[in-house]
């Protein structure tokens, strides 16, 4: 990939280590995400996918290594500065606020750069959020909460979106809707790092897949070569 060697990746992670207190969770994670790509992190429960996302976002107590966003080192920045640089997280537990209405949840993250989706576009993508604008955020169904969690980071103008298991525990039609949304935002030029357990779903949206095991990236599989690597993948994921 000579081209890729020349251009600076949108996100470059090298030798990333992370700790929760005394537990050493990430042991030198390496991967890149290029601008406009949808890249997944696959791996078994506890492999360190969420910890990787949180480390990028500055949400773990201690991290070391290199996390460069558009060539800028961010590993020593506070999470609000990382967000202001243009990275936004949709957390695994969704993080919908109970004391805020749907609209307040949607409007909570400040706009950090121009080019985010406006509310009308978001309501067109997720009609349920318009209908239930005044409901308490946590009164929404699981699927609606997930849409809200994705929608609110589309507003901000952040160009690198970290989506942590957006399809977990959701009904097939909602999984399809989230798939459509990810393809739509890719078309709009967003870059997505996606954590998934369900690689069948991942295959419908992603360009490349990284496989994590025990706090390390152990393999990279382009989406086009996924079917040729099914056996290996089944092995990695234990499915």
């Amino acid at each position, binding site marked *: 990939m000579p081209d890729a060697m020349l251009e600076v990746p949108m996100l470059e992670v090298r030798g990333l280590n992370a700790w929760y207190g005394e537990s050493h969770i990430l042991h030198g994670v390496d991967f890149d995400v290029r601008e406009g790509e949808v890249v997944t992190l696959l791996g078994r429960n506890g492999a360190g996918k969420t910890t990787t996302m949180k480390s990028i*976002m*500055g*949400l773990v107590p201690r991290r070391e290594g290199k996390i460069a966003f558009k060539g800028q080192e961010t590993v020593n920045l*506070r*999470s*609000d500065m*990382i*967000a*202001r640089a243009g990275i*936004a*997280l949709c*957390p695994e537990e969704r*993080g919908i*606020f*109970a*004391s*805020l209405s749907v609209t*307040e949840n949607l*409007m*909570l*993250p*400040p706009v*950090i750069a121009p080019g985010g989706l406006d509310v009308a576009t978001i309501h067109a993508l997720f009609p349920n959020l318009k209908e239930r604008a005044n409901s308490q955020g946590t009164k929404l169904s699981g699927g609606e909460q997930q849409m809200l969690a994705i929608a609110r*980071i589309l507003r*901000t103008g952040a160009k690198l979106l970290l989506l942590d298991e957006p399809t977990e525990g959701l009904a097939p039609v909602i999984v399809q809707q989230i798939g459509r949304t990810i393809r739509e935002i890719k078309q709009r030029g967003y870059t997505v790092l996606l954590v998934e357990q369900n690689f069948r779903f991942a295959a419908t949206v992603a360009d490349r897949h990284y496989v994590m095991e025990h706090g390390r990236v152990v393999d990279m599989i382009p989406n086009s070569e996924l079917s040729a690597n099914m056996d290996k993948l089944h092995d990695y994921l234990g499915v």
Partner: protein
Amino acid sequence: MFMILGYPAPLMFGQLLLGLINGAFYALLSLGLAVIFGMLNIVNFAHGALFMLGAFVAWGLLNFLGVNYWFALLLAPLIVGVFGVLLEKTLIARLYKLDHLYGLLLTFGLALIIEGLARNEFGSSGVPYPIPSLLQGATNLGFMFMPIYRGWVVLASAIMCLITWLIIEKTSIGATLRAATENAPLVQAFGINVPRMITLTYAGGVALAAFAGVLAAPIYSVNPNMGANFIITVFAVVVIGGMGSILGSIVTGFGLGVIEGLTKVFYPQGSSVVIFVVMVIVLLVRPAGLFGKAA
């Protein structure tokens, strides 16, 4: 004479008004405590001392700079708010990673220091603060004579509580504050400077205490103990309303003031303990307080 339930009406209304005035202070003080507790997870034991400081700042502004009551009502909360910024940034902020008992000890120590310094400077008896000329005298409400200043205290407190409630419940700043109370790390990861927000929340909470202090200055003599006299009852109000509940502290503050006032009519011997009796009953029935969410 006009009687209510066998008690003379003027006595009844008089105590009701006194109860409302006390309630006005309970509400403002417990509101500030609730705002601070929600965001910082610290019970601000310095709250009474900062209330007292607000009154002394108003006194100082009047006597040294000729700044009148109305400007003091604006300036004293601002000055005490800035002092709050200093306290939070230099001292309280160091304790967030520790057990919240440390915050309690620190703010309790601060209260002792602030009150001790005031006692050294002014003695225990305190200094007088005149009622502003616009609010002197009394008005005939038909059923009783009401000192105008006392009516103003109830009104000003209610307005300030309403403004605070509107800011927290109806504005985007308030939404951010509520969200940060629930999950501060996530709010910060959206790009909000949460440490600064915590500092300003503390400043806002103590500014409310100082506002109450200025309101109190013409009623009680401005003295070093005026905060300590109130604060024990205010903590009971906070517990009854539900720790950290905004609406709870306002409603409970005024409500308990009235209950305390009426007790003075019906059973004077019980008036000094009635709030604590209510506290015990509420804690038995609803341990999280009337408006608190069970943890």
